[in-house]
């Protein structure tokens, strides 16, 4: 038996309102493809490009960080959803969202903190980001942190490029990196 959409939606909303979820998520359409966006009571937990097809693996990863009560619940990510829509419409230059970085190493947290300060439409090199995180020789380690960034787009790892200005790499694919930088007017 298929559960009617309004009944299904009512349960999902009620679960959010009762604060019974370890994490709520939704799949958000965007110009760079569907994004799986997950949030906890503490803040935004995950933005993932692996939203197409079977989200099973992504859900299990979210559960490992937050706990097993992971439910698709649009209301849980409503603010993030609307800020992402504004960003992609060119109407938002900075995200105003608390983030949940539990389970991340201290070095990762400090690098992501510096990353968050790189302004819209600008780029930094891996080395520059390493320097501002207080570890000038750690450009490679910074590259690893960018590759595993749990909150791409919101924490703008697409703004971090190679010393020569080449794009180097992006977890979501170089095409998306270029697309995001063009959207921000950084690639001319």
């Amino acid at each position: 038996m298929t559960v009617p959409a309004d009944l299904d939606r009512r349960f999902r909303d009620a679960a959010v309102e009762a604060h019974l979820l370890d994490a709520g998520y939704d799949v958000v359409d965007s110009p760079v493809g569907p994004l799986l966006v997950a949030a906890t009571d503490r803040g935004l937990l995950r933005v993932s490009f692996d939203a197409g097809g079977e989200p099973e693996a992504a859900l299990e990863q979210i559960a490992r960080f937050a706990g097993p009560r992971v439910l698709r619940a649009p209301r849980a990510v409503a603010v993030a959803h609307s800020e992402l829509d504004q960003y992609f419409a060119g109407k938002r230059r900075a995200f105003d969202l608390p983030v949940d970085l539990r389970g991340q190493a201290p070095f990762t947290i400090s690098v992501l903190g510096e990353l968050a300060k790189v302004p819209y439409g600008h780029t930094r090199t891996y080395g520059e980001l390493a320097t501002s995180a207080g570890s000038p020789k750690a450009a490679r380690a910074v590259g690893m942190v960018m590759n595993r960034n749990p909150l791409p787009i919101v924490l703008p790892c697409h703004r971090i490029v190679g010393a020569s200005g080449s794009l180097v790499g992006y977890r979501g694919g170089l095409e998306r990196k270029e697309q995001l930088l063009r959207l921000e007017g950084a690639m001319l």
Partner: protein
Amino acid sequence: MMDAVAPIPPFETFYAEHAGEVLRLLRRRLGRDRADDAFQETFLRALRAYDRLTYGEHLRAWVLTIATRVAVDAHRRAGEPTDELPELPDTDGRPAYEELAFLTDSLPPKERAAVVLRYGYDLDYEQIAAALDSSPDAARQAASSGVRRLRRRIT
């Protein structure tokens, strides 16, 4: 030595797998109109207990037992007779407790549910408590007094 245990799946997976069957059970027991509220209550109860589950076995039996309890509560609130037994489902077509049924059918409903869930489905007392909407201690007590009652009857 314990067998390898199934991990607890993300709640979304559990919900997607069982929501349809839970709704069907509730509509059969309560009718279409009252089933909607009971559906929500069933999965909210499951959510409240879900992070205390220790392994992911027999989740279908577990959630159908919760649904049955919710239906019994709804009948009780409406002042309707509630003597019906919790409806304990087969697991994957395998009636795990069928051989015990002729014994357990005569037990009071709570004891019967506790005995069947504990010994038929091997659920732990946290899970049974959540299904029966009571505490783990009360579930343990119901199971052991059910077993005592059976033992008296057999010997």
